[in-house]
């Protein structure tokens, strides 16, 4: 059997295999570099994507809610914290009649309980199908035929019972669809028609749901929790808000731009922090790699000089170091990127929860781009450092290099 030729690749492989600790350190540094780059890029992209999707999902310019419930409303929208509040349904018709308001859609909020009567404690949102422009477009993505009374659509993080149903206040409903992940409170909410949610409210009353006495003072059939408004083109939001405040008592107004502004600021700050940390790690890793390769090549002066006196060209000597650095970078990157993928993808929901920010993984195209970006930067950092050191050495006179390496 013919022996394997001692070409550049095989020499590099043998050198790395015999390199032991030195090879291990280089692989570790490249793995750390690619890990931090991929995690940093995907977390940053996921936060931006989460915010964009959250803005997109709300779809309304203004939300009108009962006075004193602004913070609770933000809790529903951003994190799906179950809450109830009501005002008179007539607010919707008042708003719909105002100049500059193109659409006005009401929603009725109810909460379920974490007790025997209910599958789990979630926010139940009743939608006025005739006027809704906020949730219906997203529902139609997953349930084309349109939601009917008695049907339930659940958010991406709400799990139906094994038989595909959910039970609220001892009434069982078929889950007909599940929404795509949005990284907003919608993921932890369930949606149904306004009629169904009102029936549920009555069912809650019948089984003695008495945690909040004010609930029973609510005229369920003539109440709403929020009215979402879409303004007509050319109208100034500020002027409309002032007009609503003047004409309707007992309300609070939440502008979507304001709702997301604080979040956007927080997210921008966090993204910049992640970006800075990622690039700091890259700089550190690049510096460590440069130093390691420079020391490594320096310590191997005699080895490279021997290759030269046996007939290796300068290009061949540089190629050996280049090939070693590519092998180290590829191996290190595979380890780093795999660890990053194992950290990010299975735990994206947990990471989002811990961050307390909308966190939505980007689509596969963006994820692939992040992988390629991290791989290229890791490969380039390692190989440029190595080749720089090798070119410097190969340019020196071999005899002197040989003597220096003794």
């Amino acid at each position, binding site marked *: 059997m*013919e022996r394997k030729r*001692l070409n550049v690749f095989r020499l590099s492989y*043998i*050198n790395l295999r015999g390199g032991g600790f030195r090879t291990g350190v280089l692989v570790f540094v490249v793995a750390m570099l690619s890990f931090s780059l991929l995690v940093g890029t995907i977390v940053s992209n996921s936060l931006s994507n989460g915010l964009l999707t959250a803005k997109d999902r709300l779809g309304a310019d203004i939300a009108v809610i009962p006075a004193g419930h602004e913070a609770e409303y933000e809790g529903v929208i951003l994190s799906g914290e179950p809450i109830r509040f009501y005002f008179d349904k007539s607010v919707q018709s008042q708003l719909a009649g105002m100049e500059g308001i193109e659409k006005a859609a009401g929603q009725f909020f109810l909460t379920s309980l974490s007790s025997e009567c209910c599958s789990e404690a979630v926010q139940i949102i009743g939608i006025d199908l005739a006027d809704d422009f906020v949730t219906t477009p997203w529902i139609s993505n997953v349930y084309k035929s349109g939601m009917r009374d008695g049907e339930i659509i659940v958010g991406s993080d709400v799990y139906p019972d094994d038989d595909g149903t959910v039970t609220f206040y001892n009434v069982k409903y078929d889950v007909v669809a599940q929404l795509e992940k949005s990284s907003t409170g919608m993921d932890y909410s369930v949606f149904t028609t306004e009629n169904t949610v009102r029936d549920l409210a009555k069912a809650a009353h019948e089984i003695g749901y008495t945690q909040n006495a004010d609930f029973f003072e609510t005229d369920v059939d003539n109440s709403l929790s929020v009215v979402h408004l879409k303004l007509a083109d050319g109208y100034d939001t500020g002027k409309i808000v002032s007009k609503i405040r003047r004409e309707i008592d007992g309300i609070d107004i939440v502008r979507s731009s304001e709702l997301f502004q604080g979040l956007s600021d927080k997210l921008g700050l966090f993204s910049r922090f992640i970006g800075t940390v990622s690039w700091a790690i890259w700089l550190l890793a690049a510096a460590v790699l440069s130093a390691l390769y420079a020391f490594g090549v320096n310590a191997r002066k005699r080895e490279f000089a*021997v290759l030269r*006196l*046996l*007939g290796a060209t300068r290009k061949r000597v540089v190629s050996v170091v280049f090939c070693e650095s590519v092998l180290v970078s590829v191996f290190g990157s595979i380890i780093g990127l795999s660890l990053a993928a194992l950290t990010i993808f299975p735990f994206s929901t947990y990471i989002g929860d811990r961050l307390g920010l909308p966190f939505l993984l980007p689509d596969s195209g963006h994820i692939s781009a992040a992988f390629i970006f991290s791989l290229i930067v890791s490969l380039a950092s390692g190989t440029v450092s190595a080749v720089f050191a090798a070119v410097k050495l190969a340019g020196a006179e071999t005899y002197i290099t040989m003597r220096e390496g003794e």
Partner: protein
Amino acid sequence: MVVIIKNLTKEYSRGGRVFKAVDSACLTLTPGDFISIIGKSGSGKSTLLNMIAGLTVPTSGSVTFDDNELFSLSDTEISNYRNLKIGYVPQGQSLLSKLTVLENVLLPYHMAEKSGDGAETAEKLLEKVGIAHLSGSYPKHLSGGEMKRAAIARALINSPELLLVDEPTGDLDAQTTDDVLSLIKSAAGSGTAVLMVTHDTDAVSYSNRQYEMRSGKLLESAK
């Protein structure tokens, strides 16, 4: 191959002063020659050897082989000359530590991209230098003499026309010195021109022409 060395000079600067490590050396090597150059440490022997191998660029003068002026060639051409025409046994330990003895011997053969794997040739050479049983061993397990024998086998793998040997007996005992010098002499006997530099006065007796290097000057001495 005939190698003609004409007025070869190498100047270095030390402490702001220029000195000639090799001063106008002239020498002609023909097939079968076994030339030894004796001289004290620092006399310029190794520098001369490295210029003939194309490893050190001279300040002036020329090295010509087969009508080619060595230092007018490209790095690739000089490297090919070193790989195919020259066998070089450097001073001290020169085996690559991560390769086995056999792989070390095969290295110049595989660099030349010759057909076949060269293993048979390498094994025969290892047998000739008496270390065939160590072909799978790594340099760290070899004695000084065994490493020198492996380096000689490596230098001969591409059947060179010129064998350059730098201080082959520096750290060897008397018996091993004799074995190593006999191997070098046998290479000359098979038509290879051999140029050996040494400070060992006994070693020169194996050669058929002797020179002395003194303060960079190459002087022919009577046998």
